[in-house]
């Protein structure tokens, strides 16, 4: 199970397309709440034989919590999970603006073999930091530090209106900066700060996003599929019958495998559900995890795939690769978490291109699931 934990909603970023900025502020998670947080999952981990538990530290900007907080996380996890601690992993999704050499020992300990997730935009003017700090310079310096320190990282790129027509250039920017870093391309989510920006619509139509993905696919192939690009690589491998970890928004079962936890312990379906503020399951600091997992709101989400297969996705030939997409994209498009993604047409366009290139898909069951909220493995 992947648990997206947002220990703080605060962020030092000013990114134009932030979907996590609800305008509300709340107190950050306290160190003395960590035993309760991990304690809630200890029993679940014992019962879930063979399954692992990954905590993805998200935000807000999770590095605002400081390294000391995460040393406490490690200590609290050792105490809570005991002999099962080796089945617990951590990852972090950060803008890296606060990374200094002092963080490196902590990151090594916290992440083990996992990679840091971060985000960047080669299109200038989209990402920024408060107090006039240059996001780009800080990010480039920080990723150099990670590379020198032998810590792997991956990048999330948000596709927006000004990305259109530039997929090949954006691909090459990331490949040129660090061919060893993976890049995940996500469409802009029109919520939070990006829902109604003062400077006009930033988001894409499904057709526009589909066009971007096809251009990206062609650039990636032209380059010999040199760099790891998600979700293309995941779909490409699945299509060719290779074992692949499809993204959470393709499995149709993300509710079984994801949770999101806010600084005050509220539990949602995932980090994106926290951002949209819809579908709260309960609170970890007030009730047992078992009753949260059995909540009505979660049961409704777990039943989403069945509903789609008997509804809008019934005759879709791409279900095994798409799974109806992300519930939050259904929420944005139709106001309903149980609906299919609003980027349905984008996916169909890409799958059509894959069929032109590769013929009919030779799918095998996915070997796992990655998350749209962190960089690809």
């Amino acid at each position, binding site marked *: 199970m992947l648990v997206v934990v947002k220990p703080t909603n605060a962020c030092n970023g000013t990114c134009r397309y932030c979907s996590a900025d609800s305008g509300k502020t709340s107190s950050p998670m306290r160190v003395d709440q960590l035993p309760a947080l991990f304690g809630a999952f200890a029993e679940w981990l014992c019962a879930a034989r063979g399954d692992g538990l990954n905590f993805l530290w998200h935000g807000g900007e999770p590095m605002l919590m400081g390294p000391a907080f995460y040393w406490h996380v490690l200590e609290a996890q050792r105490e809570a999970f005991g002999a099962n601690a080796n089945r617990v992993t951590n990852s972090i999704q950060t803008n890296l603006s606060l990374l200094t050499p002092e963080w490196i020992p902590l990151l090594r300990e916290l992440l083990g073999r996992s990679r840091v997730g971060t985000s960047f935009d080669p299109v200038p003017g989209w990402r920024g930091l408060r107090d006039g700090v240059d996001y780009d310079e800080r990010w480039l310096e920080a990723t150099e530090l990670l590379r020198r320190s032998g810590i792997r990282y991956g990048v999330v790129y948000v596709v927006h209106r000004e990305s259109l027509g530039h997929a090949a250039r954006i691909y090459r920017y990331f490949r040129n900066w660090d061919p060893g870093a993976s890049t995940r391309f996500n469409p802009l989510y029109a919520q939070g700060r990006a829902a109604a920006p003062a400077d006009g619509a930033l988001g894409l139509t499904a057709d526009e996003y589909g066009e971007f993905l096809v251009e990206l696919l062609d650039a990636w192939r032209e380059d*010999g599929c040199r760099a790891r690009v998600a979700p293309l690589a995941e779909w490409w491998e699945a299509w060719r019958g290779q074992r692949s970890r499809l993204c959470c928004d393709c499995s149709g079962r993300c509710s079984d495998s994801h949770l999101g936890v806010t600084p005050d312990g509220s539990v949602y379906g995932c980090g994106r559900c926290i951002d949209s503020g819809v579908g709260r399951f309960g609170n970890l600091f007030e009730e047992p995890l078992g009753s949260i997992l059995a909540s009505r709101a979660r049961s409704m989400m777990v039943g989403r795939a069945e509903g789609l297969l008997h509804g809008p996705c019934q005759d879709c030939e791409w279900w095994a690769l798409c799974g109806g997409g992300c519930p939050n994209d259904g929420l944005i498009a139709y106001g309903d978490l149980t609906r299919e993604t609003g980027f349905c047409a984008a996916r169909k366009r890409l799958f059509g291109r894959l069929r032109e290139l590769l013929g009919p898909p030779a799918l095998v069951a996915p070997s796992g699931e990655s998350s749209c909220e962190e960089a690809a493995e």
Partner: protein
Amino acid sequence: MSEGRATALVDLPGEWFGLPEGSRAVLEMAETELAAADWLSSLEVGRAVRVSLPEDAPWGPALREYPGDLSIRALTGPPAALPTAVLARGECASAEIPPGQSALERLRACGEAGVPARLADLDLWPGPDLAAALDFYITCPTLESPVEPWHSLAQAVSGGWPCDLWHAEEAVVGRNIYISVQGLATLSARFDRRERWFGAGGEGLEGWRGSALWRELEGYRRALFRTRAECAFCAAFPWCGGFWVAPGLEDHERCEVWRGLMAHLAKMAREAGASATSSTNPMGTPCGRGTS
């Protein structure tokens, strides 16, 4: 460096100059200085030393009898003379081919003799000659010895190992030093020709590090990406690294030639497919000479 050059290049372990292990330092020395010096025999036995000599250099006994791991890079050398020059040191020899009228002829002669070759002073090669040299490397059916920088770059393009022109040309800040015959330290002969130096050779690493050129070069790659320079988006960047538009050395004409050559190499590598990635590099190290 050009045909008839009267200097020799002595390539020494960079550790002797305070650089990290595995780095290299190149000293440009007047031929007479080298011939007269008995410094070679005083070098620590067992350390790798390479010497590139002008084609008409006297093959001094000190050089031939040096008991350490010495390799000779003959600066082109007339084909007939090449074996004489290199046989003294056996398999550790290679040929450096500077640009000039007979450069391609010499390249072919090296190929026929099975002698590893390197295009020296890449920035002075005319575009058509560079293209012809690449064409020879790609299409010569009997070529068994590597031709640098094509060989290292072809491996990189095929996904074998990472290598860009900075590495292939042994011009990596902090890993390579070039000390000119005037005693000025810089990154490579290319920078020396354009009169861009770190400082006097005697200043040592600490002094060089403080120079404007060193700082510029250290931040160069990051600056390309921060400013969204065209290099950051270029299809050839992984094999070039912005080599042609380095600080103070902007050469956009050659950059354009290079992009065409790399596109050609990439196309050939794609067509060659998996067989190219599995080949080994006869030079023994990713970028040909162990500096990466």
